[in-house]
């Protein structure tokens, strides 16, 4: 019995450090001595005492992990101890070929050490198995901490532990422990495994829920940010418009003037004006007008990709709201391919510019992806699977687009070359 507690503590220590090793042995001895008078109840006392001790010492108060580890260790050890005893029993029965419980009492002095050794063996096996799943366990634990589920897990494991103890004590009082030990072991193990399984599922569910929540907040923040950028942009644009008209209006006066200084000054301002026109470039805040999260998300994502590849990704969204109701997933896939193609082509040009324009009337939406063109493309070839303007590219994108559109009744594709621009338009009818 003393060793059982010692092992229990060892298991407990494994999760922390070996610094408490000696203290644990002393503790185990003391409680083991008390245990001599109380039979199996001592485990309950032992755990209870340590728990109370933990909660009394302020340092440990916040550390629910300690308590959970302790209780879980006690749970596992209880099962293992029973299993060890039972295995030893079977060994003895086989060795003496006598299937009577009284046999154990006769050879008690051999039986107990052997059952403890077997118990130790099982413990080693369990530790080795846990070692293999260590990464998952740590991950699970981190998630538990992240979502502040410690208390619930503590209550869960404590509940299991107490029910174990109650069953053990009752069976001891009825003096049937030895008889029903096999079923006890099975029930305990099943309970433990299910508890662990439930815990993982529960934590996973909570994690998913939290993620969704975070995404929602993120989207909201992004929208707020986009609104403020849009406002600033509108102000700036207004100013620019006035400024340009003023500049144009005073041009004749400057031309007529004799002052060279004034002329130079005018020229300088005109130069700066060109730089200013860059300000409005790539105004992503317009994306806010798209009422669909998926499509807006795609466009914002592509915008940042464009930025990292030094491509000027222009949006032309002049309406306040764009609604997308049907076939959003197909639209996202097609748009993704069209934009990627445009990026790939534009990347090779001096004029790295790609435009995405959306127009929407009653029930017809047109999304156009536009990139400049500096060579002759054969319109009739581009949908051939394997066709690509890039030599090292497989070019299955457009063939896939064609396939996706063929499968849907409401989508139409238009490909156009105009003013040396290449424009691909996806037309969506109905929403």
């Amino acid at each position, binding site marked *: 019995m003393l060793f059982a507690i010692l092992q229990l503590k060892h298991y407990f220590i494994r999760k922390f450090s070996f610094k408490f090793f000696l203290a644990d042995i002393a503790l185990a001895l003391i409680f083991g001595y008390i245990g001599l008078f109380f039979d199996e109840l001592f485990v309950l006392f032992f755990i209870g005492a340590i728990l109370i001790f933990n909660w009394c010492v302020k340092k440990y108060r916040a550390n629910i992990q300690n308590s959970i580890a302790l209780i879980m260790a006690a749970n596992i050890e209880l099962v293992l101890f029973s299993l060890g005893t039972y295995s030893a029993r079977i060994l003895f029965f086989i060795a003496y070929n006598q299937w009577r419980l009284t046999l154990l009492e006769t050879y008690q002095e051999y039986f107990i050490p052997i059952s403890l050794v077997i118990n130790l063996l099982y413990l080693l096996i369990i530790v080795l198995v846990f070692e293999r799943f260590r990464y998952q366990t740590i991950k699970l634990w981190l998630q538990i901490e992240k979502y502040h589920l410690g208390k619930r897990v503590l209550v869960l494991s404590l509940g299991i532990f107490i029910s174990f103890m109650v069953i053990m004590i009752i069976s001891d009082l009825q003096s049937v422990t030895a008889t029903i030990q096999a079923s006890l072991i099975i029930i305990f193990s099943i309970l433990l495994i299910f508890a662990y399984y439930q815990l993982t599922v529960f934590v996973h569910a909570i994690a998913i829920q939290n993620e969704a929540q975070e995404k929602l907040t993120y989207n909201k923040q992004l929208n707020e940010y986009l609104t403020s950028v849009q406002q600033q942009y509108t102000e700036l644009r207004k100013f620019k418009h006035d400024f340009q008209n003023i500049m*144009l209006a005073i041009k004749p006066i400057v031309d007529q003037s004799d002052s060279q200084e004034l002329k130079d000054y005018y020229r300088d301002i005109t130069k700066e004006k060109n730089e200013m*026109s860059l300000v409005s470039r790539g105004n992503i805040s317009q994306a806010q007008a798209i009422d669909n999260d998926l499509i807006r998300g795609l466009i914002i994502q592509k915008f940042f990709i464009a930025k990292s590849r030094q491509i000027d990704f222009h949006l*032309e969204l002049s309406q306040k709201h764009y609604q997308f109701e049907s076939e959003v997933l197909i639209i996202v896939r097609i748009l993704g391919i069209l934009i990627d193609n445009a990026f790939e082509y534009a990347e090779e040009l001096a004029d790295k510019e790609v435009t995405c324009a959306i127009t929407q009337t009653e029930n017809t939406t047109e999304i156009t992806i*536009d990139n400049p063109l500096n060579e002759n493309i*054969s319109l*009739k070839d581009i949908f051939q699977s394997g066709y690509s303007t890039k030599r090292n590219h497989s070019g299955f994108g457009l063939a896939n687009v064609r396939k996706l559109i*063929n499968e849907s009744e409401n989508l*139409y594709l238009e490909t156009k070359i*105009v003013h040396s621009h290449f424009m691909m338009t996806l037309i969506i009818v109905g929403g």
Partner: protein
Amino acid sequence: MYPIYLLEDNKLQRNKYAEFIHNGILINDANMTLEVVAGTVDDFFKQYDSKKQALYFLDMEILDDKIAGLKIAEKVRQNSPLSQIVFITTHDELSLTTLERKIAPMDYILKDNGLENIKQSITDDIEKTQQELREYNHLSKNVLDYKIGSRYFSILMDDVIMLYTNKDVPGRIFIVTKYQLAEFNGSLNTFEKDYPNLFRCNRGFLVNVDNAINYDSKTRILSFIDGSTCEVSFRKNKELIKLMSKND
């Protein structure tokens, strides 16, 4: 006399542009006249004749309406699809791709580039319009119309190469022109009836013989200016040979 319209809210600029247009007409010796000069949208519509085809120079932003020019252009396109529309605008007011989709203007003139540039562009556009008018007097001004959802599309018949169907996508017609590929729902039979100048060379193809370059009557393969080809059914072989020789 072919009419020219001008819309610009800034008085100083309006007078300048009017002067440039008069100049352009003189230089090109064009049979045109600057019929309407307007400063507001209302003013424009008071003098607007929806029945006549014309050349339009439009400013995009009129007073506080950022897309007044676009709205007018849409109306003009609806009334007379073949009108020439030119936008005079500052660079960042310009949504090139959207404009191209909705209006397909003949030209964009950027105010940012200075008056000298604007003058040159106006003169060029007048010349271009004059040329187009001369050419279209000989050709059919026919356009092919189709509809997707609530949107109407027109394509110049001279640009049309072929319409065809694909048995994988029933009910859909694919159209190939010199500059674009498109698709819409419909049946080739209707188009064959509505546009008698198109030739039904087999069940799935309706082609514009004007844009064909070669016909091999042995293999019965008809090829077009864009490099695409189509097979001609045995029944239509003779008819096509007759048609091709007439065209030559």
